[in-house]
């Protein structure tokens, strides 16, 4: 041991003087690496794999989408009496504005059937709108006074509004009731919101206060005796939509509808979309494992898969007719034009 230390001390001193860099794979840039080369073969196989994966998924999504039955009925124009010229004034007059619609079931609809309303040209994603809420207030009964961000719907008559803000204030308030052959179809309005919203974002001991008491009425009223966590229409409404055209879940009809059925809808046409010429639609839809009717996914998948397949064919043909030899030195630029400047 002793000799070895004595022996090693000498070279170590010389090593310290030497400025020779130590070898390491990192500093010499020799880390092991794989070098993928996009050979024609690799390109073709990659596209083949994409084809194989995407086409089945596309077909599956398309089938799922086709299984969904959807009835859409636009009613904003029809629900204004024909003698009314000023639609905005009409809709703003207080009182019931009933309207009757008929929906024809073209295809059998299995329960549950989801009832949506769809608004157009409604900017729930406007910056002024999105931020106009106060999550503290919604969750915590002790924070009724925290209305920051809610302007201009933060207080009315000097009292804070619960729930405050433009979103709650402009709550959608058209009502729908359905009957088939004059049998009422009950609309279940429980469980239409995301569970996480219900349980964590809206307090079960927060009750509406001073709501819609301002000078201008924006939209629906709330029952002051029901806590916010159970006001599911409000919860759904307050999960603001990403685009100005959106649907919101209104309720569920938990009976099957048969082909040929005619559904009578008793509409309470209260919500003002007329001032900004927004459309209102009623949607009845079933769902699949992928959700509602959505051909887009299937088409997109099939397009990508189809394009890949086309490219597989095209590349294969080129590959067979006029292959480029891999690593052909004649492709090197300095071989292509010898003596080029």
């Amino acid at each position, binding site marked *: 041991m002793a000799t070895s230390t004595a022996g090693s001390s000498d070279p170590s001193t010389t090593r310290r003087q030497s400025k020779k860099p130590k070898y390491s794979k990192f500093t010499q840039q020799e880390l092991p690496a794989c070098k993928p080369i996009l050979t024609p073969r690799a390109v073709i196989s990659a596209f083949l794999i994409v084809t194989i994966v995407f086409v089945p998924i596309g077909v599956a999504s398309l089938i799922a989408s086709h299984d969904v039955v959807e009835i859409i009925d636009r009613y904003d124009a029809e629900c204004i009496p024909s003698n009314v010229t000023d639609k905005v004034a009409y809709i703003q007059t207080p009182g019931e504005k009933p309207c009757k619609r008929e929906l024809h079931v073209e295809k059998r609809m299995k329960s549950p059937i989801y009832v949506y309303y769809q608004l157009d040209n409604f900017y729930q994603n406007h910056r002024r709108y999105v931020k106009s809420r106060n999550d503290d207030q919604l969750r915590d009964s002790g924070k009724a006074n925290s209305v920051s961000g809610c302007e*201009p719907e933060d207080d009315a008559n000097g009292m804070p509004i619960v729930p405050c803000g433009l979103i709650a204030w402009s709550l959608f308030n058209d009502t729908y009731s359905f009957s088939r052959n004059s049998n009422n179809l009950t609309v279940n309005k429980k469980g239409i919101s995301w569970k996480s919203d219900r349980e964590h974002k809206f307090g079960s001991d927060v009750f509406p206060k001073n709501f819609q008491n301002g000078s201008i009425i924006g939209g629906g009223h709330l029952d002051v005796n029901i806590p916010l966590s159970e006001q599911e229409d409000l919860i759904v409404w307050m999960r603001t939509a990403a685009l100005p055209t959106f649907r919101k879940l209104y309720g569920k009809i938990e009976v099957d509808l048969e082909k040929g059925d005619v559904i009578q809808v008793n509409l309470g046409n209260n919500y003002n979309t007329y001032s900004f010429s927004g459309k209102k639609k009623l949607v009845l839809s079933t769902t699949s494992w992928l959700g509602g009717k959505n051909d887009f*996914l299937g088409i997109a998948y099939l397009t990508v898969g189809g394009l890949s397949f086309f490219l597989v064919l095209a590349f294969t043909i080129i590959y067979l007719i006029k292959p480029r030899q891999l690593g052909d030195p004649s492709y090197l630029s300095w071989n292509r034009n010898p003596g080029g400047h």
Partner: protein
Amino acid sequence: MSINNNMIDVLQDQKWESIPWKKLQVGDIIKVKQDGFFPADLLLLASTNADGVCYIETANLDGETNLKIRKALEKTWDYVTPEKASEFKGEIQCEQPNNSLYTFTGNLLIQKQTLPLSPNQILLRGCSLRNTEYIVGVVIFTGHETKVMMNAMNVPSKRSTLERKLDKLILTLFATLFMMCFIGAIGSAIFVNKKYFYLHLDSSEKGSAQFNPRNRFLVFLLTMFTLITLYSTIIPISLYVSIEMIKFIQSTQFINKDLCMYHSETNTPALARTSNLNEELGQVEYIFSDKTGTLTRNLMEFFKCSIGGEVYGNGVTEIERGLAERNGMKIDENKSANAVQERGFNFDDARLMRGAWRNEPNPDVCKEFFRCLAICHTVLPEGEESPEKIKYQAASPDEAALVIAAKNFGFFFYRRTPTTINVRESHVEKMGKIQDVSYEILNVLEFNSTRKRQSVVCRYPDGRLVLYCKGADTVIYERLADGNTNNNIKKVTREHLELFGSAGLRTLCLAYKELHPDVYESWNEKFIQAKSSLNDREKKLDEVAELIENDLILIGSTAIEDKLQEGVPACIETLQRAGIKIWVLTGDKIETAINIAYACNLINNEMKQFVISSETDAIREVEDRGDQVEIARFIKDEVKRELKKCLEEAESYFHSLSGPKLALVIDGKCLMYALDPSLRVMLLNLSLNCHSVVCCRVSPLQKAQVTSMVKKGARKITLSIGDGANDVSMIQAAHVGIGISGMEGMQAVMASDFAIAQFRYLADLLLVHGRWSYLRICKVVIYFFYKNLTFTLTQFWFTFQTGFSGQRFYDDWFQSLYNVIFTALPVIIVGLFDKDVSSSLSKKYPELYMEGIKNVFFKWKVVAIWAFFSVYQSLIFFYFVSTTNLSAKNSAGKIFGLWDVSTMAFTCVVITVNLRLLMICNSITRWHYISVGGSILAWFIFIFIYSGISTPYDRQENIYFVIYVLMSTFYFYIMLLLVPAAALFCDFVYQGVQRWFFPYDYQIIQEMHRDEVDNTGRAQLLEVGNQLTPAEARSYAISQLPRELSKHTGFAFDSPGYESFFAAQLGVYAPPKAWDVARRASMRSKPKIGHKK
């Protein structure tokens, strides 16, 4: 700087005291010892040599290897000892500090006398003292006022061209940002309308001004600012940080620690002194190289000779070796056992050694050859008179090499007296016999640049009178006697001279002549007359010399190798193949410069050479007339005419495809006029068309001017490499400055951006590190551009859907962390590890470097292609994901809100952008996988935590539970597969098609070597080992040399001459020799000084 802490002896109270350089003050009297550097510009007072003469080496200033002579004023000769020096009292009046190395005007007021001072008394900082025990001098200029420092330019802060282009890209991005904001703000001003009652736009609470329809202009302005903050992610701020980080690691870890650039002899690793310019190394198109110390070792070795029509010497020069290797042959250096290796002598041929020459076909010629070497020179022996211990003091290393050669052949010159030369001759009468012979030296006809020869008339002990002459082949051949045998030798020797010359060897012809005593006596009278004449002495001496230097008999020729640094020709060849043009800028003479250009394979006989020199008869004639204005005008016209002629010729060659390669040789004086703004364009046009350019006799400032001419005029990326103080300004002027480290002077290294120990490491530095850096930085920049543009554009598309309100698509935290965490690390990994082909392949295919010169990877076209795919991808991200909005997304019929959609989009962006990175990688290490995987994982971990907690802080809990909501739907996973695949689809097609149909060079190389394992240890390139015997190798190498008859025979020799060199010994007045460049100029002022004395 450590250099200023060197100690120097200063006179204090009649004693020499050591103080550091930095404490020196003007007026101090200091002592500089032999081989010491002058710490400041000094006025030479006295020298230990008689007559106040001292010898200095100026290699640091002008690269010249021969010593220069400086002579103190007679009045001050005595101030050698401290006691005496302390009595020195005087006043020096001189010009303001300036940068002209070759001029000085001033007066010394001493003892009420005014003595004029000339450059001859000035010792410049940067030079060193040689062959003189010590000198005493007065400090005139110190520090930044010294002439060397005045030649240095302000240290420029250098930024790489790529970074400057990056600035333009950033500006473009700013413009894009502004455009986007402008569009958004206009949209916003149009959108705001009271009809959207749910937005309550008519209210007048605080902060409502932003959307107040009554003041749309204000809406426009305020939205503008909102959008600027919203889209600010388009500016890749973290790019600069990342690039700095990458470059720092590249330079400290890769360049500094590269074993391939470690020079074990001098224990010097490469050193990157700045990390700014790594990628600039990958785009260099012009290299400006100093000669001495950079290309050459400043070491002359006797290498070959031709005696009586027979070539001796088996050595193979670097250039020959390079030629042979190119033809697939490997030449082994098989030194025979009796080869003598000595500094100055690298000659291996048993036929001449140890008296073996007696058995050669013409031993008498050999004898004359050796005697000529031993006698005809101006070398001083020093030290013990034994062959092993003796030291020769020679004015030029060439001379020393010749005398050393004579010594090794058995003609040992060991003593010189003013009238004799003593030579110990071996094997002359018979083998093994040694005898001392004393030759009486009767006349010395000294060397100068017009005569290009040097002769000695000596008397043998037996009374025979012989004139030995050595000089340039042109002048010797003119003076040879006619005769059959002589003619034959002349012809053969001429061929040999050409062979030597094209191999880059410096040649001298040797000749002799027997003199009849009567002829000699009559001539000697004329000689003495001429020597004692007062005016036009030199001219008269030259004329007299002509009378006797005729009817010579040719003995043979010598070939001296100006020893190149190791691997220089091979490196130059590699760099030229890489599309880099190499210019040699040297302070040396035109012949030497051309010679080295040959040796380095920069010029060969197949090239068309344009020589623009001021050493023509016409110019000389005008100069002799002495009218400065006239001289300037004449030279300018001459230069203009020459330039025009050359340019026309060059263009005619340029148009014909198969024309020869062009080379330009120009000297400093012509360059001075050619750099004039009116001729500059012509010079630039001509030189850019030339394959190689050699500028000789250039001052440090001219070096810088040439460099900046190419840098600014041609807008090419330039690199300067040098080792001495004279290269500093050129190093600073170029885009990239490289200093040669590991030698004495540090000025070049201190001014440089990179320091390497050997010229040949340039290949590694440029072709490997530079190229990789360039590729990597390009990728990093482009990728940053892409990822930020893509990300911001999704935000931009969203703006259209929100009534231009400036609502964020992504949560604040997503947006902030996008650049910092989710996409930061992988791109740095690419910047560090990506390499297209291995380092050995980079050097094997130097042509790959041209991609960098052409800036293939960071053109606007490339940017546009990436921008296109960026737009495409962002459209996919936004519109594919936002289709999600409408219908139900799970079987429970529930609908996604804004934050669900945006989180999904963000997830897609993060995944796609990271995968896109993998697609640009040429080599994927496990760090790539870790960083890319890690980044994606980091996003998921972050979002799991971020959406899982609800904090008590006042924040909008928009993201609460979002990811869990998303992950509870099939839809999310289906989208996660679709969106990245669709987004990358086009990129993949593009890459596939590009590689298939329009492959880059590096891609072809990759394919050619795809099956090779990247073997570690950077194995040298395959060398086809064709073993040859030395003789075969020699004949092969010779046969490979160009056979074409050329003018170039490799003469390059300089010596300050006998008279001035031995003035001290002989006590004879010697006309002071000015700096060579200023020789002619100083000639006119000389008589003045002479009269004073």
